């Protein structure tokens, strides 16, 4: 490729990339999510193809679901975007950026991205990043919060330094309880709690938690956390702090708002409750097993004949053991063929034959089973925060 010649002159040489939003950033085209108030424009944000606009400031963009049929990895320019606070820098200097490691450590560190790349063993992990509120729009009764359909998720190959190697370099002192993460995202008014997340020591020092500087072989798009973000495979995206510049080892369980009050699920049982119930809560952590059909959408007209229906499945890190497919609304199931295995944190593609007769309707469904034995059921999970939806998903197609 001729990429190198592009890199010699002009803006690249001066190390500055200015990325506009494009003249027709808010395109006229709209799509309708399948729930009340589901009308959404498609919008083109910097470094992104047209995505489903949930909110402009701070940006929250959903991946159009058909992207998940393009391949097992979600392209960077299609990867969903979710920020909490509108104080996001629109310009980040990748050379001046430093990750500070401090708190209960022997040596405070200030690491450049270059040091992260050179001084620590690079590790690459394919992993699903799924917003805790993915699919919130389908809750019944509805709950306030980001009204996503199923596209607030993506799968990428994340490359970076292990957090535990970085912590070892700093030297964690006795008495460490959690590690607390902050990024460049800031509240507009000082009265809003800064967005900070914390992980227990055993999770933070597990070998798969990364400070990632690459995503699918490229730099992270700014809206996905350029230049580095935390990657916590198996855990919901709320912990994957973007533009991560502050890592603090603390001696007690974090009491900040985003841990103590927000992003919590009912403590008892499987975390699902009846609407209106109130229960003690715990922080949300691992994702639940899910699967989707990607090659067809609800209401599609298909031609009679045989075809393969394709989809994806994932869980919170045990890996997908099997996927079953039903063409009769879940009355009978056949085991689907699994695609390539990219590790236990990745999407796993699957496919299954469908022999469609003329003039029929088919209710298609898929059901994933994870290696830890968890399996999707038809029961819908309701939580006050709109988290944890993972019931069997189904859709209808019709033949002419």
């Amino acid at each position: 490729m001729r990429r190198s010649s592009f890199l010699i002159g002009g803006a690249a040489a001066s190390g500055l990339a200015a990325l506009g939003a494009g003249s027709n950033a808010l395109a006229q085209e709209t799509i309708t999510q399948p729930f009340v108030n589901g009308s959404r424009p498609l919008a083109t944000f910097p470094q992104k193809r047209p995505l489903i606009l949930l909110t402009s400031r701070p940006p929250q963009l959903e991946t159009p679901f058909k992207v998940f049929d393009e391949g097992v990895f979600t392209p960077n320019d299609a990867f969903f975007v979710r920020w909490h606070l509108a104080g996001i820098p629109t310009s980040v200097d990748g050379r001046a950026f430093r990750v500070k490691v401090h708190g209960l450590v022997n040596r405070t560190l200030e690491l450049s991205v270059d040091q992260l790349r050179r001084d620590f063993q690079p590790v690459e992990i394919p992993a699903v990043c799924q917003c805790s509120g993915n699919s919130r729009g389908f809750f019944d009764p509805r709950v306030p919060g980001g009204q996503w359909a199923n596209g607030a998720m993506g799968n990428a190959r994340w490359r970076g330094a292990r957090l535990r190697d970085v912590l070892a370099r700093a030297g964690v002192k006795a008495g460490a309880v959690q590690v607390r993460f902050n990024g460049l995202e800031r509240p507009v008014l000082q009265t809003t709690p800064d967005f900070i997340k914390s992980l227990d020591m055993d999770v933070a020092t597990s070998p798969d938690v990364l400070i990632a500087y690459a995503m699918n072989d490229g730099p992270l798009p700014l809206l996905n956390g350029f230049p580095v973000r935390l990657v916590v495979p198996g855990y919901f995206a709320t912990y994957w702090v973007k533009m991560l510049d502050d890592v603090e080892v603390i001696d007690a369980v974090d009491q900040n708002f985003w841990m103590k009050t927000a992003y919590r699920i009912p403590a008892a049982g499987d975390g699902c409750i009846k609407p209106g119930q109130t229960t003690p809560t715990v922080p949300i952590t691992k994702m639940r097993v899910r699967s989707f059909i990607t090659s067809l959408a609800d209401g599609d007209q298909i031609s009679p004949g045989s075809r393969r229906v394709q989809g994806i499945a994932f869980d919170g890190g045990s890996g997908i053991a099997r996927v079953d497919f039903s063409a009769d609304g879940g009355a009978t199931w056949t085991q689907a063929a699994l695609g390539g295995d990219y590790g236990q944190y990745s999407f796993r593609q699957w496919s299954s034959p469908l022999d469609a007769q003329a003039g029929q309707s088919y209710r298609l469904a898929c059901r994933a089973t994870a290696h830890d034995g968890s399996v999707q059921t038809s029961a819908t999970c309701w939580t006050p925060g709109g988290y944890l939806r993972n019931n069997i998903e189904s859709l209808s197609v019709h033949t002419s």
Partner: protein
Amino acid sequence: MRNRSLPGAAASALIAIAALLGFASDSAAGAAPPNPDVTVSVTLPPERQLFKDGPGAGLARANCQTCHSSDYIYTQPPLSKAQWLAEVTKMKNIYGAPLEESQLEPIAAYLVTQNGKT
């Protein structure tokens, strides 16, 4: 670069960006080192001004798009007056919106005309 397929309007801009940032030019060229040694500057598109005229619109415009765009309100499911009051109260008590007690009810009353249910 030419045979990369990118969607319509974004294509030319993104190709330029890809070159500037040293993005891997295609996924097969996976060996390309990531290049965070640049300053990335973006211009975000303008936001929509969605609060429609009506009693209380001024209060909402003045108080409900300081920290975020107005689409936060219109993308919610339709909420009852009590639910909107709870949302507005949450903005004040939890996120520190500088609102007077006396403003909460009038704002909730306006919001239920915008995106409400009974």
